[in-house]
């Protein structure tokens, strides 16, 4: 059942953070006794750090930067005024915590009042309904092509400085740059290829985002191919799934794989690539042991190695891990 509330600017120091917030409860359960506001703040940050980079939900740091740049929040937080007059935040705890932190640290700007929608004496069911709608359903994120188109317009038409776009989005500059470059390549090379049958498919955007990774354009150039060739392959479905774009440097440099690719596509060509044979002893190891070993290895991966893999998404190790991910996903889906 929908409930309506009153919209107001509320002093942040009168708002209590919600200790029953599912996002942070798992962290707060580690503390004995009543958690302090600082512990709740830490838990909110810690809870958010778990979100993956590709997630459309902003991480703690991204949200923080975005609020500072914008000078406030866009969506009001939702408060429940309890019978004793206490204002408890039921949606927007991180935003309230950030306002409190900015106020305490004297961050430039007015952080004393926060836009809020206030309900009175909400029943538990209504509180659950609000939380579920906010976090399990959530706002519909834009598809990547639409995001890229918007970023491109901000940069190209409105001449907004890159640093400002990055701060507003709360993202990484390389992500924004990749989105804008991928949009331009898609419009310049893919759109003309599909004009005839009007089959422009915005879902192919991720192929053009992959194209921006180091080494892919270079490989095209070195093997005498053009970006129009690339767009044609995307259109013809030769690069399906689109993450096979990252195999292109290896495929194009391998005569046999290249021939297969041009006829049948990247998945078939991949089979022709030289793949290192796994250690014979490892092949005899039971699956569960291999899975435990991979898990432990990933958990104990030194930060330097992680950074190195991250900066080289076309490396053999990353490709092997992606192969495992694909096989595992398919395998587990089949298991039900």
């Amino acid at each position: 059942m929908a409930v309506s509330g009153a919209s107001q600017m509320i002093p942040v120091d009168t708002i209590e953070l919600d200790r029953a917030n599912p996002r942070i409860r798992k962290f707060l359960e580690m503390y004995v006794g009543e958690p302090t506001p600082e512990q709740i703040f830490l838990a909110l940050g810690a809870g958010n750090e778990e979100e993956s980079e590709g997630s459309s939900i902003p991480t703690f740091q991204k949200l923080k930067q975005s609020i500072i740049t914008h000078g406030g929040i866009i969506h009001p937080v939702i408060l429940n005024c309890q019978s004793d007059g206490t204002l408890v935040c039921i949606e927007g705890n991180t935003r309230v915590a950030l306002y409190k932190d900015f106020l305490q640290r004297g961050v430039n700007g007015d952080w004393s009042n926060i836009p809020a929608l206030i309900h009175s004496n909400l029943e538990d069911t209504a509180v659950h309904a609000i939380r579920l709608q906010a976090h399990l359903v959530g706002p519909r994120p834009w598809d990547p092509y639409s995001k890229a188109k918007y970023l491109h317009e901000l940069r190209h038409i409105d001449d907004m400085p890159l640093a400002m776009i990055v701060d507003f989005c709360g993202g990484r500059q390389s992500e924004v740059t990749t989105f804008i470059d991928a949009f331009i390549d898609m419009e310049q090379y893919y759109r003309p290829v599909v004009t005839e049958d009007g089959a422009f498919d915005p879902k192919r955007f991720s192929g053009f985002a992959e194209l921006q990774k180091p080494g892919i354009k270079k490989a095209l150039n070195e093997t005498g191919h053009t970006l129009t060739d690339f767009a044609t392959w995307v259109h013809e479905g030769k690069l399906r799934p689109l993450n096979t774009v990252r195999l292109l440097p290896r495929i194009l440099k391998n005569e046999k794989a290249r021939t297969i690719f041009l006829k049948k596509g990247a998945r078939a060509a991949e089979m022709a690539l030289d793949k290192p044979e796994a250690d014979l002893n490892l092949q005899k190891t039971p699956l569960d042991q291999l899975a435990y070993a991979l898990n432990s290895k990933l958990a104990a991966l030194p930060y330097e190695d992680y950074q190195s893999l991250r900066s080289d998404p076309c490396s053999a190790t990353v490709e092997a891990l992606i192969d495992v991910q694909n096989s595992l996903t398919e395998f587990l889906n089949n298991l039900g």
Partner: protein
Amino acid sequence: MSESVQHTRLVQAIIAQLDTDLGPLCDIMVCDDSPNPLRGERPPKLSGFIPDVYATDVPTTRVVVGEAKTEQDLETTRSHLQITAFLTYLSAMRNSLFILAVPFCCIPRGNNLLQELTRTSDTPPLIRVIDDFGLEHG
């Protein structure tokens, strides 16, 4: 001045130089391999090596790779392999620029080294040697 302090100064000199080549810092993408990167992002690995600075305009029409070398670093085999890898990477791109930042006393050697390393390339990138004050030489 310690090696690391000098290296940091050289990286800063490259970043300051970007203003001339790509435009104001607020308008370009800059990744640097410093203890505290300017925008919190480290450069991507290029041909197996991570440069000290990687920058592009947005949308990307020009790529600039910068490498800082102290006097001791400049003569190591690894440094020569690294610089060669960056020059090869950039040679496949139009309008690319390689900036080598070295202490003032190493400017002649820096210039000679880049000339040696680009001699056999058909399409070498633009190259520039600067000192730790950002002054261009050669």
